[in-house]
């Protein structure tokens, strides 16, 4: 008895029906997409407009969690988990610690936007217009039908791409090692820069 048959035996009838017919009634409905996208964009707006940096950090956490929900809708559970663990759990704690270390009271009473903010806003609007024109002109280039990704073996396949034998599967093994070196250099740099005396 192979593993697939055993998995099928363990599945409930509804789950098995969905596995046999993947197109039937997906859980990821358009309602969830619009809710998550709206939450991401609204809290992204909060990030760049709040006076207090702690409020910005909390809004950024909401954005990160919403984007992680969008990853789940795109059949990327591993990236969604990494997003929650590394971003919302690691990087945001780092941000909150730094906000705690630098004094925030004086900054909140000052001007929040720099003197040339209209220029920056204009440049951003030009960028937005570029995106809008590119997407409206090129929307027919995207294929209508999207490929199905196997959600249950997602992590396994990413692991094979990262660690597998270089000749067959693991095209990213070298890049993975370089990434670990990058993290080491970043840790050393952060420690050396924050030390008072070297």
């Amino acid at each position, binding site marked *: 008895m192979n593993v697939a048959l055993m998995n099928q035996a363990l599945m409930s009838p509804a789950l098995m029906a969905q596995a046999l017919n993947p197109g039937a009634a997906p859980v990821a409905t358009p309602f969830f997409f619009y809710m998550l996208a709206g939450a991401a964009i609204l809290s992204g707006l909060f990030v760049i407009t709040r006076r207090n940096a702690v409020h910005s950090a909390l809004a950024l956490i909401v954005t990160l969690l919403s984007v992680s929900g969008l990853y789940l809708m795109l059949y990327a559970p591993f990236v969604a988990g990494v997003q929650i663990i590394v971003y919302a759990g690691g990087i945001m704690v*780092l941000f909150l610690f730094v906000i705690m270390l630098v004094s925030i009271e004086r900054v909140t009473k000052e001007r929040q936007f720099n003197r040339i903010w209209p220029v920056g806003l204009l440049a951003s609007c030009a960028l937005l217009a570029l995106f809008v024109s590119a997407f409206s002109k090129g929307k027919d280039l995207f294929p209508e039908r999207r490929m199905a990704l196997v959600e249950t073996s997602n992590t396994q396949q990413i692991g094979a791409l990262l660690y597998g034998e270089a000749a067959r599967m693991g095209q990213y093994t070298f890049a993975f090692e370089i990434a670990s070196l990058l993290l080491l250099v970043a840790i050393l740099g952060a420690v050396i820069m924050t030390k008072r005396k070297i």
Partner: protein
Amino acid sequence: MVPITTLHYLVVAAALFVLGVIGVLTRRNVVIILMSIELILNAVNLNLVAFSRMWGNLHGQVFAVFIVVDAAAEAAVGLGILIAFFRNKETINVDEINLLKW
């Protein structure tokens, strides 16, 4: 309701990207500028994962994981620079950072 296509995700990512660019270009607080950079990196990640779904292979998701690594490194170094600067000048406003100006 129309089904959700790749383009929907790209539009959300473009909106997040523009919000991040606005934050970088207009804010004075360095902490919030670094947070805006995180917004930009998230928009790029969303694009990569959406394209990964579109083509049905996992290369986009692997790249997204690498970008998360880069974001962690960038946040650590950026916040380290920020703390070192705050110790010298008692400010975190980016337009008062002019030590290298002649």
